[in-house]
Each structure stands twice: as C-alpha cells, then as structure tokens.
C-alpha cells in the first residue's frame, strides 16, 4: 500500500523498515506490533487496514500538520 501511494504521487515516499535492525526507531515510534506505519513521524496506522482508511489517515495527518502551522503563536 505504502509503495503504491509513493508510485502514485511524487509527494509521497515510502520506507519499509526492518524493526529488528533499527531498534532505536522501533522504540521511538513504539513499535510493538507489525506492520505499523508511521506517517510524517507523527501519526500512525497499526496493522493492515483497508485502502480508504489508510488514505484517510494520510490526509488527516497532513491536515493536522496544516492546522498546527496555521495556529496563531501562543502569547508570550
């Protein structure tokens, strides 16, 4: 699925990460069950989910990042 999205869009890149070889990454993202997909280092999808659900997670992650970028700065 991840590779399919990367092939479909130049804005997407997909890494398959073997958790045993990179335990620091697995710890950082709390990988206890696989497959686990981390989206832009912030959102996650655990397990194999239907295509529409996965795409929704991707667009939601982008929307949340956009909301954070648009939020007014906290008063000092």
């Amino acid at each position: 699925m991840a590779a399919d999205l990367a092939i479909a869009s130049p804005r997407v890149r997909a890494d398959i990460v073997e958790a045993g070889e990179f335990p620091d990454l697995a710890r950082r993202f709390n990988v206890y069950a696989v497959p686990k997909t981390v989206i832009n280092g912030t959102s996650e999808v655990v397990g194999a989910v239907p295509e529409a659900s996965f795409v929704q997670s991707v667009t939601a992650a982008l929307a949340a990042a956009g909301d954070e970028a648009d939020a007014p700065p906290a008063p000092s």
Partner: protein
Amino acid sequence: MAFLTDTDAEFVRRRLTQEMVNDVRLVFFAPSAGGLTLPGEDAQAVEYTRQILKEMVGLSGRLTLEEHSMISEPDLAKQMNIERVPATAVIGLEDYGVRYFGIPGGYEFVTLLELILDVSKAAPPLSPDTLAAMAGLQGDVHLQVFVTPT
C-alpha cells in the same frame, strides 16, 4: 550457503519472469564499499543484505544491483534520502521514493519482491478516489512501514 531455498528461488524467478514490465535497479547502500568494515558497523547485516540482493538479481536479467557507500558518497545518499544502512532503493522507470531499510531476511524477501514488482509495473492498483486524493495532496508524505522478519 544460499539464503533463498530452491523453492523460494523458483517462486521469485517465476514471478519476476511473469510479472515484470519495466527493468528495476536495486541501489544498495552499505556503510562502506569494498568489504571494508568500520568500527560499530553491523557487518553481518550488511553482508546478509548484499547476498540476498545478489541472489534475487541473479534470478532475472531485468533486475540489476548497484552498490554505493554512504560514507564515501554522502551527497548521493542524502539525495536519495538514505540516512541509515543497510538500505536498498528500488528504482524503475523513475525513482518513486521506495526504499527498504534493513535485511530482507526470512520471508521479508517476499516484501522486497512485491516492491520490485510494484515499481516495475508502475501502475498501482488504487481506486479512483485514492488516485484523486494522491493528486490533490497539499504536502509531502513520508511513510515508514515497520516490519519484522518471520
């Protein structure tokens, strides 16, 4: 000793022969090239990965293997978003940003095979809604799919 059993090798050979559309390059990054092992480097993981890739490439004339060093070619590694090794970029007509980080050991060789075939076909079996969503993305997306060898 081969990593792929005879049965697995025949399975891979058959699927590559029947399903590949465009040629695919496996661009492998190791910490260093030429068999040099650096302190702290997991030489075994690198060597296992190298051997598995060589075995897979040996099963199809449409699959080639290139090896690079992250240490001596840091600009290339950065350009290809390779920050950790061992890493394999799977490249077809274009570089679609598909990477495998780590050893494609155990049955993970099937995952690598599927990446090769997906990149080769370059026609992802996605719904029209998904394709539209991908065309309308308003930002960059980095997907990291964690797997473990079984």
